[in-house]
């Protein structure tokens, strides 16, 4: 499989179209974790949000491009090329720290956001304390006097059970925005 085909495969995650196979309680726990995470982001609790990340987290959002139908397997920019985010824990930490400098003008005054998370589907993996979780998001943002925008897309997370109040940590997240040309002025927050 070509690198690009791999990304599309990841994006489509064909295996995830299979019936959900985690126990009801696990599915519930995972959903509650994602909602709590959304709550942290909307409340500007970014340091607490950062604490949900595994030490070796990879937070990645490839860019996509409009392709002819017969070239759809090349719609996503492959790993190592154009991305909106391609972050490890330290890099994410820099972004979080920046938002708290009081000079991050893109978020001064801070935006109000609402992370709406839906279509959550979880699957078991090897090892059995980790789960592949797919979800959709709609992040609605208002800022300044009358700015408003929406960013909508899908996420593919690898979650690991963790001994904390939140119950899980995020091992990796791939964010796929629905827009090719971003119809928003910036992506100054997290998805």
């Amino acid at each position, binding site marked *: 499989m070509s690198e690009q085909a791999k990304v599309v495969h990841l994006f489509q995650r064909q295996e995830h179209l299979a019936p959900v196979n985690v126990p009801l309680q696990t599915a519930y726990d995972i959903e509650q974790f994602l909602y709590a995470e959304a709550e942290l982001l909307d409340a500007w609790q970014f340091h607490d949000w950062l604490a949900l990340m595994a030490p070796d987290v990879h937070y990645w959002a490839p860019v996509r*491009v409009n392709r002819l139908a017969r070239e759809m397997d090349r719609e996503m920019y492959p790993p190592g*090329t154009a*991305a*909106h985010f391609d972050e490890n824990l330290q890099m994410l930490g820099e972004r979080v720290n*920046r938002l708290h400098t009081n000079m991050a003008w893109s978020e001064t005054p801070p935006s109000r956001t609402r992370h709406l998370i839906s279509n959550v589907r979880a699957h078991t993996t090897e090892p059995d304390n980790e789960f592949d979780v797919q979800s959709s998001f709609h992040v609605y943002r208002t800022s300044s006097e009358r700015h408003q925008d929406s960013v909508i897309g899908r996420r593919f997370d690898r979650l690991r059970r963790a001994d904390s109040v939140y119950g899980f940590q995020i091992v990796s997240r791939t964010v796929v925005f629905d827009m090719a040309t971003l119809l928003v*002025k*910036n992506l100054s927050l997290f998805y």
Partner: protein
Amino acid sequence: MDVSQWIDPDRGLIRGEIFHSQEVYAQELEQVFARSWIFLAHDAMLPQPGDFIQNYIGEDPVLVVRQPDGTVKAFLNQCRHRGMRLCRADTGNARNFMCSFHGWNYGLDGRVINIPHGEEIYNAEDREQFRATEVRLANYKGFIFGTWDTTAPEFEEYLGDFAWYFDAYIDRYEGGLEIVGLHKWVLPANWKFNAEQPTSDMYHGEVSHASAFQVMMPTPVDANSPPPDWAMSQLGQLASPAGFQFVSPYGHGTGWFAGGMPVMNETIYRWQEATKDQVAARLGPQRVTAHGHANIFPNFMMLSNYTFRVTHPRGPNEMEIWAWSMAPVAAPAEVKEAIRLDLLRTFSPAGMFEQDDAVNWEEEQRILRGYMARKVPLIYKQMLGRARYDADGLPGRTVPHVYAEEGARGMYRHYIDIMSGAPWPDLARLKQRREDDERSATAAPAKPDSFAA
């Protein structure tokens, strides 16, 4: 519209009307975008025959296509029949382009090669006249520019002295540049804000980008020690901003720090240090550092960190930014990767520098809805009266400070020229006369108070 009623480049005063007016905007599409050289593609974006990318000249979509013989052609991405967009993909490979309305089929060169039922329903006309509208192209070291205007000066003449500066961005290393990626996004502001900034405004960095500098500069090993020496030396550039700005009679501009653009990534820093002599041997010592930010009028911007972008106008209140990341082919893999990551984290829509520019421009644009906000002139007076020619080994008209507005004044001087609708040959003569006058005037000793209005 006579835009000179709002712009006084000699006194450095500009009224906001030019960023706001719908009428000015319509005139820009006609006089600026349809008559200037616009960046369309880089050779590396079209490696194979049949490879195409879609780009724009102003609001007009253009298909740029690699031909079977290896040359490149470009044409308006519009079917001649009823004006449908011919190709709706951003990029790809094709053997021909079939219009999805009535099925006219165009070859890679824009010629109509098949019309359904054509023999029955059209007279035996010369099909050449149905050809897609062709763009005049120029290829400068792999960078392909196009214009609709057959009377526009040759591209090299249009670049003029700026070619020397352009090379410092694109020709530092043997082998040129490769394409790493592309970001596209939309900002609620006039396209000229993103044009005048790289032409001129390094001044905003220390305030607009203070938060990004803070968090991206390397952190010390422990909390009590300062950042490493190399990082301090980079921050030092910002603290005492010596440098230069160049301005072209055709509206191009560039500015740079005397010690080179501050770098925040150690891998990139070490590589640039290690290859300094190589660049100096290739381009001469000045161009090791004459490398900050620049704009080729109207809308092709470049930064020393290998971002290259066009800013497409989308009405007076909106622009669409297309930003390509490139990397020197000659750079080692780990440096290319460092450049890629550094760029996406600084100057993409999620980039920590770029995000803040967006908000400045949005607020500037919004306030222009007011009457007084458009009436009160904005102040473009930095380093006014300090221009000189061919000084310090720098070709053309420069001022000796990186924080200056000479570039912006020059951009708007050309903007008035071209918006007047005067034919290109007249403009070329006007510019020559102006330069001759200025050269003789600036041969006299510089005026002591350069900031007087």
